[in-house]
């Protein structure tokens, strides 16, 4: 009997030992986890600020993370890389094609950079500098590049890439909102290109009433970043702002904002814009215009070449103009700034080579190629105003005439600010909020966001 008990105890002991082994393993894992985590946090607060860039400025191998710029024909990324390597034969640039969705891009870059890896240079959205700067996910380029370099850019672009006095991104190519119109229809109705919103609405109503076109004005009002871009244009036209100069409080709750949003709503309720505007992104609005169903289109600079591509129903019928403003305001109206900057990864081992690459990409040759061969708006001021570029296509010709407004991206909490704006604007367009309600909600959500509250 005792033997059995011993055996039973042995079994229980073995199991207890097994369980205690597991317990020890669990504790060990926990200890290891804590050790790793503390190692992570004690790694210092980002790359140390050195006045001279590390690495070799003319030799090395770097990786460039960039999402596709065009969808057909030659790839500007590979063209520019090969041109660069001809100039700097000892620097090899490897292209890593990034996903198109800017949010997915940011997610991957954050994962990689915070994990100690990631590409050397990455092409990122213009609204990232504050967020990336605050989280030290990008190198403050102004530490290495002098003021003379930053002065080569067109007005306003460097300011948009600045956070806390440091410039985090080099503007690579720019984008903005334009008013595209059907010049054949305007001509047929003896109308000139509208310079005010009121004119645009009345032109649209007239031509729609005649049945010559389905929609008057198509834009982007879906529940995404693009809706913020569109709204900023209306807001600027009405004289409103989103944040105060310190970017720590909302200034959105104003008569101007209500006026802007009310007007945007009226476009849909009056039938000038389709009811589906609350689900329109660039694709839908572009398709409607290219199919010949819309009189006016607000879209980025790519829309011109897309509207003239084969398969489009409006080839030769499209003109482009700056955005209109409200009556009584100085024309033109505001265009929202889009586009892409080049950033440097704090973990890059060859910052010097990265800077060489960036300087070349923002220099005369690359910018001219981007503009003339690929129809992108250059950020280099000299290139932008050169006649070669201006004659390249109708969009580039009027870039100097537009008035720009940036999104309120000076705060690291910009994504939440933007969400506050676009989800409430979208609510108005979908008919579930009044403009007053939307502005008030957005304003209070923005206040929560900039105070770092909220999810």
């Amino acid at each position: 009997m005792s033997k059995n008990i011993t055996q039973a105890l042995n079994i229980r002991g073995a199991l207890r030992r097994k369980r205690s082994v597991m317990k020890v393993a669990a504790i060990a894992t926990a200890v290891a986890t804590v050790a790793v985590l503390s190692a992570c946090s004690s790694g210092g607060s980002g790359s140390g600020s050195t006045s001279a860039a590390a690495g070799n400025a003319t030799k090395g191998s770097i990786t460039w993370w960039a999402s596709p710029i065009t969808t057909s024909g030659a790839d500007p990324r590979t063209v520019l890389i090969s041109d660069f390597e001809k100039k700097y034969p000892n620097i090899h640039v490897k292209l890593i094609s990034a996903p198109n969705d800017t949010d997915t891009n940011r997610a991957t870059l954050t994962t990689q950079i915070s994990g100690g890896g990631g590409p050397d240079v990455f092409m990122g959205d213009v609204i990232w500098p504050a967020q990336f700067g605050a989280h030290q996910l990008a190198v403050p380029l102004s530490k290495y590049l002098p003021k003379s370099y930053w002065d080569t850019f067109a007005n306003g672009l460097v300011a948009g890439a600045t956070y806390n006095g440091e410039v985090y991104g080099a503007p690579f190519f720019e984008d903005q909102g334009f008013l595209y119109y059907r010049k054949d229809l305007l001509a047929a109705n003896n109308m000139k290109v509208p310079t005010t919103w009121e004119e645009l609405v009345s032109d649209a109503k007239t031509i729609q009433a005649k049945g010559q076109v389905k929609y008057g004005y198509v834009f982007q009002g879906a529940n995404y970043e693009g809706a913020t871009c569109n709204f900023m244009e209306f807001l600027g036209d009405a004289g409103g702002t989103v944040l105060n100069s310190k970017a720590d409080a909302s200034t959105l709750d104003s008569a101007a904002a209500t006026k802007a949003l009310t007007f945007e709503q009226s476009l849909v309720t009056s039938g000038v814009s389709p009811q589906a505007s609350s689900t329109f992104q660039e694709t839908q609005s572009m398709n409607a215009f290219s199919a010949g169903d819309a009189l006016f289109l607000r879209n980025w600079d790519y829309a011109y070449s897309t509207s003239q591509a084969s398969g489009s129903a409006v080839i030769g019928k499209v003109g482009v103009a700056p955005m209109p403003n409200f009556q009584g305001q100085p024309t033109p109206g505001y265009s929202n700034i889009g586009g892409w900057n080049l950033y440097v990864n704090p973990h890059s081992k060859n910052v010097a080579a990265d800077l060489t690459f960036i300087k070349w990409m923002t220099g005369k040759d690359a910018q001219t190629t981007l503009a003339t061969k690929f129809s992108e708006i250059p950020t280099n001021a000299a290139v932008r105003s050169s006649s070669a570029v201006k004659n390249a296509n109708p969009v580039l010709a009027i870039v100097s005439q537009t008035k720009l407004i940036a999104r309120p991206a000076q705060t690291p909490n910009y994504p939440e600010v933007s969400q506050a704006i676009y989800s409430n604007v979208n609510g108005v367009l979908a008919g579930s909020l009044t403009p007053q309600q939307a502005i008030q909600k957005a304003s209070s959500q923005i206040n929560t966001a900039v105070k770092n509250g909220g999810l």
Partner: protein
Amino acid sequence: MTSTHVAAPARSGGPHLGERRKKDVYRRTMARLGWGFSAPALLVIAAVTIFPIMFSVVMSFSNVNVLGSGFQIDGFTLDNYSIVLTNSTWQYALVFTIGYTVITVIVEIILGTLIALVLERLVGGRGWMMAMLLIPWSLITVISATLWDYIYDPIAGVATQILSVLGFGHPVILGSPASAIIAMMIADIWKTTPFVAIIVLAGLVMLPRDVYEAAEIDGANGWKTFWRVTVPLLRPTIALAVLFRVLQAFGVFDLPFVLTQGGPQNATTSLAILGYRAMFTDLKFGPGAAVATTTALLVVLGCLLFLRVFRSQVSETEM
């Protein structure tokens, strides 16, 4: 309380001791064998998931700042949880995710079982039908979402076209909360009903024939047989399907991400979307980890409750 499978049952009193000892030794050997058999699987799982899960849980209890140099984690705080639990969007997301899960899983179970029944009766062509069933399931979730995005497109979408032909005017399917939610559910149901159908079918086919033959002899007709015989025998299979569908549905992400980006006005913001937004859009890993951990806890609690109800069916040889 462990049931033992012994080749020779203990017989008479005398060699009782020896028999029991043999049983014990046998059981211990079998137990050790069991650990040996499961070791590779458990080790791989532990190696890959323990560190990330613990990392995430620790993050949810601290002030986290994601920096280029790594995660800056300091202090123990319940702030993340209080931010999450008091956040109205999170509260909505919780209700929405639970409701979404319940509705889609119920519909899928019903539809899936019906499809499995149809397939089970087919003799010829069952293989082809099964292959066909797997196609929606094999679509990449983001692609399936993109397909439905195109189907629901307000201008070029076929669903919009069908609805307007049926007299609904110019519906903007994804534009208003109610229709967006229903549209999302339809897309999800379409994609995952085959999953349920296949599980149920495999379960159906493994049912012992003699039960049916006995029922037939007793004169039971089709429907009665189904409810009184098939369903009870199918309970463990269906329970398994429900369990895993619930797990997946609770984490619904791709559909709202592609179709509505969580809108309109956060109507389709699921817990997973909220977690993603907190972590990767707002770069707030502390609250994001809190969302993830609470989600996991909720699902586990739900599943444990479910298992307790179906315990006898699902795990037959338990203590």
